[in-house]
């Protein structure tokens, strides 16, 4: 991104509504935060009216756009004693715009990409990502569970967004055109965008104080690896429910299941390192039989192993895990405890 100039424009709410309708008329799937019952989550929307931008953050993440809850990997068909494998038609995957996600969620794409294209490119993930445009909305509010600035992000961060909107007041948005794809979008939207009169973005953003240094946390976690008492104290109230992994925008654990009989499908679905089955061997041996060991795995994977292997943090500080956790396993609190633990 360095060296590529980021154009700024402006768009007002009325034009934004038209822009969304334009995507719809182009046959695109639009995923945006929508009020569902008592909570706000990403869902298909048809207009700006359905979108909710009041919340600090949605409960679930938009990773479902490129890493669905359940997806078909391929299908198999048996006839006349032969089995035919049918790959997915990647061309038929929906063109998608993810609208209204926060800068932390946009930054999370880099973590998912690091995992799914690590040594061999995951064709389904890559195809979905190639067909996804990201229009983020910067944060004017944050809460006590947000910690993007501790992990290299910020409430107005452009990383991962094709276009980032910042609410400037009176229904106007500053639009930062971040990527080439963003510029393409601008071209087809043309008249909906005006010149940016007010570019004072900073004054519109939430203030999130950084509370830890990820490198210091990584080395603290590694140092504490064998301190069983530390991990047991931290994780004693954890019930292994899996909610954290499922709502997390960077968690990519998955399971693969074949369904059907002599003909059927191979499916990929979400999984969690917190489950008892995580590293259970067929022999019955389990290298991580205790919840404390799986909790340690979660933190180490995100803050030590991923930076070491993929040069990207496995956490964007969105705070979803803490908000969703039924027993307040507050990740920020635990990271701080690790950083402060006496050697």
């Amino acid at each position, binding site marked *: 991104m360095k060296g590529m100039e980021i154009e700024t424009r402006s768009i007002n709410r009325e034009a934004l509504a038209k822009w969304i309708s334009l995507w719809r008329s182009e046959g695109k799937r639009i995923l945006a935060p929508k009020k*569902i*019952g*008592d*909570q706000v*989550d990403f869902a298909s929307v048809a207009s700006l009216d359905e979108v909710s931008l009041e919340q600090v953050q949605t*409960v*679930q993440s938009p990773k479902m756009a490129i890493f669905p*809850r*359940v997806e078909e990997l391929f299908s198999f068909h048996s006839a006349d004693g032969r089995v035919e494998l049918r790959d997915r038609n990647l061309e038929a995957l929906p063109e998608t715009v993810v609208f209204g996600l926060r800068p932390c969620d946009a930054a999370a794409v880099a973590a998912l990409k690091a995992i799914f294209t690590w040594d061999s490119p995951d064709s389904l993930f890559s195809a979905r990502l190639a067909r996804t445009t990201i229009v983020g909305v910067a944060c004017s509010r944050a809460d*006590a*569970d947000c910690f993007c600035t501790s992990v290299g992000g910020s409430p107005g961060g452009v990383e991962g967004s094709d276009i980032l909107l910042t609410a400037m007041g009176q229904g106007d948005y500053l639009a930062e055109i971040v990527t080439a794809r963003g510029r393409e979008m601008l071209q087809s939207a043309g008249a909906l965008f005006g010149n940016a009169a007010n570019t004072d973005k900073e004054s519109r953003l939430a203030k999130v104080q950084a509370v830890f240094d990820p490198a210091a946390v990584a080395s603290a976690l590694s140092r504490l690896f064998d301190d069983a008492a530390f991990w*047991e104290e931290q*994780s*004693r*109230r954890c*019930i*292994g*429910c*899996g*909610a954290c*992994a*499922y*709502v997390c925008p960077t968690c990519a654990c998955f*399971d693969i*299941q074949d*369904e059907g009989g002599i003909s059927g499908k191979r*499916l*990929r*679905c*979400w999984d*969690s390192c917190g*489950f*008892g*089955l995580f590293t259970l061997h067929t022999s019955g041996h389990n290298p991580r039989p*205790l*919840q*404390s060991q799986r909790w340690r795995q979660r933190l180490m994977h995100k803050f030590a192993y991923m930076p070491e292997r993929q040069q990207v943090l496995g956490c964007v500080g969105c705070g979803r895990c*803490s908000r*969703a956790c*039924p*027993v*307040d396993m*507050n990740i*920020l*609190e635990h990271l701080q405890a690790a950083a402060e633990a006496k050697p």
Partner: protein
Amino acid sequence: MKALQDKARELLATKAVQVVIGYGRGRRGEARALFIREAAGVRDLIFDETCRQNLAVYLMKPEVRKLGKAALVASPAVLRTILQLAAENQVPENGLLALAVPASGDEVVALASFAALEAHVAALDNDLSAGEKAELQKFAAMDLDERQRFWQEQFSRCLKCYACRAACPLCYCTRCTVECNQPQWIPVPAHDLGNLEWNVMRAMHLAGRCVNCGDCSRACPAGIPLYLLNQKLISDVFAGFGSRSGMAAAGDNAMSTFKPNDPEDFIK
């Protein structure tokens, strides 16, 4: 609160118990589970309307059991959970101390024996509340298609994260049905059909056992009103068989026994 703290301090100081499982203040000001092993730690004990989690879920965790004998801060739902676990031979007599705290939080009743627990629970109102019954009535009044659409929409959002199972103290199977794959009886992926099968199976496995603590619904990240399924079965089990879970430390579960004259008007 002071009565609770004093009692906890006394229990730890005299080594009557090795751990007090109660509630402390979490980061967002709400309650969260607290495991106190030293008398000094009791100052962190709280009891208020945010103390809702069913702490009995920790009674089945090896990591907590190994700490030794526990005293458990117990709401009515927790007391009934202890009795239900006892009826299922999961907790021994005098294996733990229940600290019953009324809503006001300013006194505490220590219950050691199952008989004491039973007597205490018998004096409480263990029926579904008027509000809960009204909500079930509302569902009964909906027509079939309306109910079908409601639940299909709800289950389409289920993630199969099993937070409901993890939060429930009575889902303590070390290998849940969903974790067996010869055969894979309940599908793993969170597609609509699999979600229906999972939620039906869990509701049925809790029939006659669920104590209506509500933790499953609070844990669900998709906001599905799971409590409705459980309350429906609680209501039906009581209406059909006259049984209620968590009232006695011994005795058969409603679904593991029968009466010769159980209702059968629907059977040809």
